[in-house]
């Protein structure tokens, strides 16, 4: 009996130790930072290309584990639980290691991680001020682009923040759809055979980015330029298999980009301000990004002499967002964005346009709990059948476990 009691008290002591150390400054392997994000919502209808469905649903429910592995490596694992047509899917969104002690301001990250292109992409969605990413992200990056690959980053030893990096990824989720199994052209003709086995490259994505930033008075800014090369981004003729799917089921949860091209250029900026630089009570965030996607039209083939695809406009999109926290308990945001894409119909492109105007109001009981009401007005031109849609989302996002440090 005494022995058991002793053991029980040992276990209790160990439990107490673990619960206090969840807040530890430098988590280690025996003492990792564990955190979970709970996200649930009700939505009256769907936003195109977004992950949230109509009615009640669970959003980005995630469980993350991170720690310094040793004095050289940091590791993080983020598992995401998603519901898709009644099925529960477990996805790995992040599983990466990063060097901590390379000399000269260099670092390497490898595994599965969020690409550092643009401003929003490397932020976790639960820190967003809106329930879904702007349409331009949903169209060109599949909401947020994470993939298996490697990154080399360098931070310059200058007073003006200056970082630059290159990444390379597998790029499966950024592939333009295979042109093969398309029924419209009448089944198995020779056209099909040409494209049935599209030869995708194993390393699909290469990126390069640079960011600069600093302070002006009590405000802080950052601006970035990114380039993404997508080896598998060019469409082949007669493909809108992916589109058809997107139209019907809003693409489910495969995080694939809906519109791709060989070259994507991104310019981004963010400005944050707080009175006296004190973020405790009020603060303002203004951010915007511009995307341009080029070289998506199929390479001309001999049987189309007058191919309109060759002279099609580039795809592009942008958004501008402003969020003000006017008290520790309340914040409000407005966001406006436009996305111009080109959809291939047989041998020619249809221009499509989506405009989104959004307002959101969030109540924060503490830093860890948020309840948000968001209204989106969508104006579409040939865009998934959208003409004038109104979307209302009521959402909660709550985090539990270790304090996560947030990015700027």
């Amino acid at each position, binding site marked *: 009996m005494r022995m058991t009691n002793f053991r029980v008290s040992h276990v209790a002591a160990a439990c*107490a130790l673990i*619960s*206090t*150390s*969840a*807040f*530890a*400054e*430098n988590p280690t392997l025996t003492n990792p930072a564990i955190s979970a994000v709970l996200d649930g919502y009700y939505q009256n209808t769907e936003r195109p290309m977004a992950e949230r469905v109509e009615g009640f649903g669970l959003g980005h429910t995630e469980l993350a584990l991170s720690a310094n592995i040793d*004095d050289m490596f*940091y590791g993080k694992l983020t598992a995401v639980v998603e519901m898709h047509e009644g099925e529960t899917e477990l996805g790995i969104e992040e599983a990466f290691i*990063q060097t*901590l*002690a*390379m*000399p000269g*301001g*260099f*670092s390497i990250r490898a595994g599965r991680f969020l690409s550092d292109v643009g401003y929003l992409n490397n932020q976790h969605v639960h820190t967003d001020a809106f329930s879904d990413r702007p349409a331009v992200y949903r169209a060109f990056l599949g909401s947020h682009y994470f993939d298996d690959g490697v990154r080399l*980053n*360098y*931070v*310059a*030893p*200058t*007073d*003006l*923040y*200056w*970082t630059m990096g290159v990444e390379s990824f597998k790029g499966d989720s950024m592939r333009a759809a295979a042109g093969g199994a398309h029924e419209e052209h009448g089944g198995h003709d020779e056209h099909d055979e040409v494209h049935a086995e599209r030869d995708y490259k194993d390393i699909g994505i290469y990126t390069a980015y640079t*960011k*600069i*930033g*600093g*302070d002006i008075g009590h405000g*802080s*800014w*950052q601006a970035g330029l990114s380039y993404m090369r997508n080896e598998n981004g060019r469409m082949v003729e007669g493909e809108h298999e992916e589109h058809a799917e997107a139209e019907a089921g809003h693409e489910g949860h495969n995080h694939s980009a809906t519109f791709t091209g060989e070259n994507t250029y991104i310019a981004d900026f963010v400005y*944050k301000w707080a009175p*006296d*630089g*004190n*973020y*405790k*009570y009020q603060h303002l965030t203004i951010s915007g990004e511009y995307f341009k996607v080029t070289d998506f039209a199929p390479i001309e083939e001999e049987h189309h002499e007058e191919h309109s695809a060759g002279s099609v406009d580039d795809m592009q999109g942008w958004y501008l967002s402003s969020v003000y926290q006017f*008290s*520790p*308990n309340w914040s409000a945001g407005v966001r406006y964005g436009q996305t111009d894409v080109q959809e291939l119909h047989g041998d020619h492109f249809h221009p499509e346009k989506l405009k989104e105007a959004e307002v959101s109001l969030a109540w924060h*009981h*503490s*830093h*860890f709990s948020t309840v948000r009401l968001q209204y989106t007005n969508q104006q579409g031109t040939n865009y998934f059948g959208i003409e004038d849609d109104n979307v209302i989302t009521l959402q909660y996002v709550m985090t*539990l476990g270790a*304090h*996560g*440090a*947030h*990015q*700027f």
Partner: protein
Amino acid sequence: MRINSNLAKVVMLTLSVSYSSLANAKLNIFACEPEYAALAKELAPDAKIYSATTAMQDPHQVQARPSLIAKMRQADLAICAGADLEVGWLPMLQMKSSNAKVRSTDQGLFFAAEHVNTLDKLESVDRSMGDVHAKGNPHLHFSPQRMLKVAEALTAKLISLDPASQEQYKAALSKFSDKWAQATSKWETKAAPLKGKKVIAYHSSFRYLFDWIGIEQVGDLEPKPGLPPSSSHLASLLKRAEAGDIMAIIVASYQSERGAEWLGERANLPVQILPMSVGGNDQSQDLFTLYDSAIDLLLQYQPR
């Protein structure tokens, strides 16, 4: 073989030259809070010192902003309060700045709280308790005894990073210690009438100041650590204030006075903003004048 060994010698020589030249260069110090920038200035007057925050900014809530990443990238030493005060931003700065020197407390990272006994350590932490720190209250810079210990530990750290300037650091510490000991006894005499006085304050920001000079904080404007004052909580504080034994309502320089003023008007109590750190008001130019100012401001509510 000969070439190889010569090459090795050249490499070794280059390394040792660059190492010693680094050691002799003045240290680049990143302080998380202005009180540690001020302490670093006392102990390493020649160093290049940058403070990430001001006394007007809540050190719990700091953005891991580009300018801070750029400063940390160049730092030889980062001095922070620790006890998880900076847990919401320091790890991100370390990750983003890719500076191996300030990764670990074995090298150029220094947490003041690791060198003293903090007050209010907790056995277990639950978020329902609010934003509390298991490792104890990190606002320890208003404890003169603890700051002296921190100064000694920081000097040891400076010497380990820059052994060539050992003598200067030792001299600076001994000068600071003498001056600090004298000032401490002066402050204690001056603050004696404040002993046993009761205040309502915002957060546990002045926990160590009150502990040292014997002031009792009978109420907190925050219902729970990290949560803003709520009207129901303020109403309960008003009830407490009716007992008539409270000297003043104390707010730190980075905290909003709104709740305090609401309560002060109704309970007929003065609201006093105390500098949270160096730069928190005009008088607080260094650690010595910071203490002077805080004690003087409290003494004005005391009949002499």
